[in-house]
């Protein structure tokens, strides 16, 4: 990391925190995202146990085994993301590509699971119009899903870049690190959502 920063020349003329600009910016952005999801999670918690909600409410419909599997898939995608990063630091381009693709695939499986879950819930009579808890559930998990989709697009873009002749270079390695940060964040948020929204009664 230190060598890389030196090559980019950012730290020669400036005082700084010793963190690359793009990484620092990503950290700030993710801090902001915590507030975004925090507000949605609090809203769901506020609504979930209310009296007078028109049934069905989300808790009646949760399929915990199914969601556990899709959560596990998303968790594993963080592992493959780490492996992609690791492969890049070994300058192993093919392995980097494979792990990137694997990460994106796992993300897509998760999204597929969410689409299935949403459509099942709708068939069982719960739309976001049904009651406030359902609204909270759909917007929270839906916005999380949107974040996953954006992450998949970024992963596939990285994959596309790496297939060109020059591959993912050391300097661009930071891009991979950035996408990695984002991906792990999205994953962590899901762990919170799964625990707080699905598991805690």
């Amino acid at each position, binding site marked *: 990391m230190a060598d890389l920063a030196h090559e980019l020349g950012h730290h020669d003329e400036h005082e700084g925190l010793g963190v690359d600009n793009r990484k*620092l910016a990503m950290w*700030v952005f993710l801090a902001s995202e915590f*507030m975004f999801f925090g507000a949605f999670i609090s809203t769901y918690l*506020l609504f979930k146990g209310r009296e*007078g909600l028109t049934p069905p409410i989300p808790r009646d419909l949760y399929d915990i085994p199914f969601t556990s599997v899709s959560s596990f898939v998303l968790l594993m995608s963080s592992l493959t993301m780490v492996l992609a990063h690791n492969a890049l630091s070994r300058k192993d381009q093919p392995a980097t590509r494979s792990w990137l693709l694997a990460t994106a695939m796992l993300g897509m499986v998760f999204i597929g699971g969410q689409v299935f879950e949403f459509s099942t819930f709708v068939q069982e009579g719960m739309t976001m119009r049904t009651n*406030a808890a*359902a*609204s909270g559930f759909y917007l929270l998990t839906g916005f999380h899903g949107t974040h996953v989709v954006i992450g998949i697009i970024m992963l596939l*873009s990285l994959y596309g870049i790496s297939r060109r002749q020059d591959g993912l270079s050391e300097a661009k390695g930071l891009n991979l690190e950035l996408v990695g940060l984002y991906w792990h964040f999205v994953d962590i948020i899901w762990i919170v959502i799964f625990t707080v929204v699905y598991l805690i009664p």
Partner: protein
Amino acid sequence: MTTTASRSTIFRRPKTTTGFWSWITTVDHKKIGIMYGYTAFFFLLVGGLEALLLRIQLAGPEGQFLSQAEYNAMFTMHGTTMVFLVIMPMSAAFMNFLLPLMIGARDVAFPRLNALSYWVFLFGGIFLYSTFLFGTTGAPAGGFLADEVSRLGSAPNAGWFGYAPNTESQYSVGTVLDYWSIGLQIIGLASLLSSVNLITTIFNLRAKGMRLLRMPVFAWMSLVVNFLLAFSLPIIAVALWMITFDRQFGSQFFQAANGGDPILWQHLFWLFGHPEVYILVLPAMGIVSEVLPVFSRKPLFGYAAVVFAGAAIGFLGFGVWAHHMFSSGIGTVAQAAFGLSTMTIAIPTGIKIFNWLGTMWMGRLRFTTPMLFAIGFVAMFTIGGLSGVTHSVVPADWQQTDTYYVVAHFHYVLFGGAIFGIFAGLYYWFPKLTGRMYSEKLGKLHFWLMFIGFNLTFAPMHWLGLQGMVRRTWQYAADTNLGPWNMVVTIGAFVIATSILVFMWNWVVSRRRGVQAGIDPWDARTLEWTIPSPPPQYNFAEIPTVTSLDDFWHRKYTEDDEERPVRREGADALVAELEHTGRHPDRPIHLPAPSYFPIAVGLSLPLVGYGIVYHGEVWGLALLVVGLLATVTSFIGWAQEPSEPEPFGEEG
């Protein structure tokens, strides 16, 4: 005259450094700052016009100038405009133009992202204002506002705070509130991007030796403000998404009949809204902390205390939101807690005020226009701060809430505070911006007119409010005896408007015909005064090295035995040399290249906005798809564009 290494990407890359297209494609923080400034000033005129219409309506009892619908639209748009389209972008203008200059950098950390922030803000503002062309509103079922609504009334009409459930579609029919919620969503995105960018800039692009506690106070206050933005904007984003989904897709967040909770809106809104108050006023505090020392010829009294007080205000700002909700039935424990936390905010604020007074105390004061505005800021902000503390007393607040007393209070902090600070800054940095001096005579005329007009307008609102005059109500009865003071208020508003005309005249004339300013007309203390006026594109020919707080001052001045400043012998030569070397860098300087993509992304977002508002129509859905595709395409083009600095500029 200019060459840019042109590499083939999707489009040919922009090259010009002058003329119309150079502004469209610029990533130069100074040009972006200037665009922010002019745009915000334009909206100031619009928001001011809206205020004048309100004041004509309220000049006498039972006014008939505006209809109820128009009155609601005007007070909503006045507040929304002044907060989101005037003070915030005006602060952004100062931060953009000044931060890199103050901390010794060539640009911000992400120049293209910076341009994106501006364009998203601009097109978000235009989207919001397009409600006057396309928006619809009308009476809800069983409502009493059943008159025909004119174009002037076809604007958001639920207040800048947009309380639910009034904003729900059964009470607010038509599209105007969709323009409001989606417009604010877009404008908020601009500020969020900018906050990420500027935090990184302040942390990572400081000149050698400029440790955090050697930064100018303005840079510090900008840092605090940008953290406030980063943490509070996502909350309003969530609230705005909720109301958008409630209105567009039938979600039930604020529908009490189905488990929803209108009070949730108030919590989310004020969790954003109270930090927002400090977002509006802290930049002005930063400006004043730069202006007062220069014109007192003394260092800022208690630099560290001012900095930490600013940070403390930022932290406490997140813990007081429910004092906006004392009449919302939040319970006595919450009322006591938020009353107390509100009182504690007065402590860091008081620290700042005493430090500013300490700065002026025994100083050699020069009463220039920026100094007058800065002193005006301290005085008026103190009044507004004190009336603010009275709100923390819950039973008193019950009397004051929803009356003109509150209107008086927040205009003293936001106009007497933020706007006075902004004008202090506009005059203070005018020579740096244009290379010329403004007319001191006209500047002082502007100050006194504005100062008198301001107090005529807002001081009487205190007693009007205590006499029971209610906010957001389009008429008052003749037998209330509120007429005379309301007439005074209206006269005051027109005095303010006159003072703005004086300011504009001064600005336009002085830009062309003012006396040449030189690099350091004020004998100032910070780095932006060590480079030519107006600053060259690369800012610093050589990135400076800093050895202390107020480094430039210490290079010009030493102290005698009684700690009075004594100008060093070589000071004049130093300034002359800086002027020369600033214009003649000894090696080529690499600067970020201009780009089309920021404006492309900025343009695509309102399309998405219209698409959401009109998603029920086929063309609306088409617009949504086109907008999203345009956004993604622009970002892909953006990602393809090399982002390393390129040799740029003519004087290398």
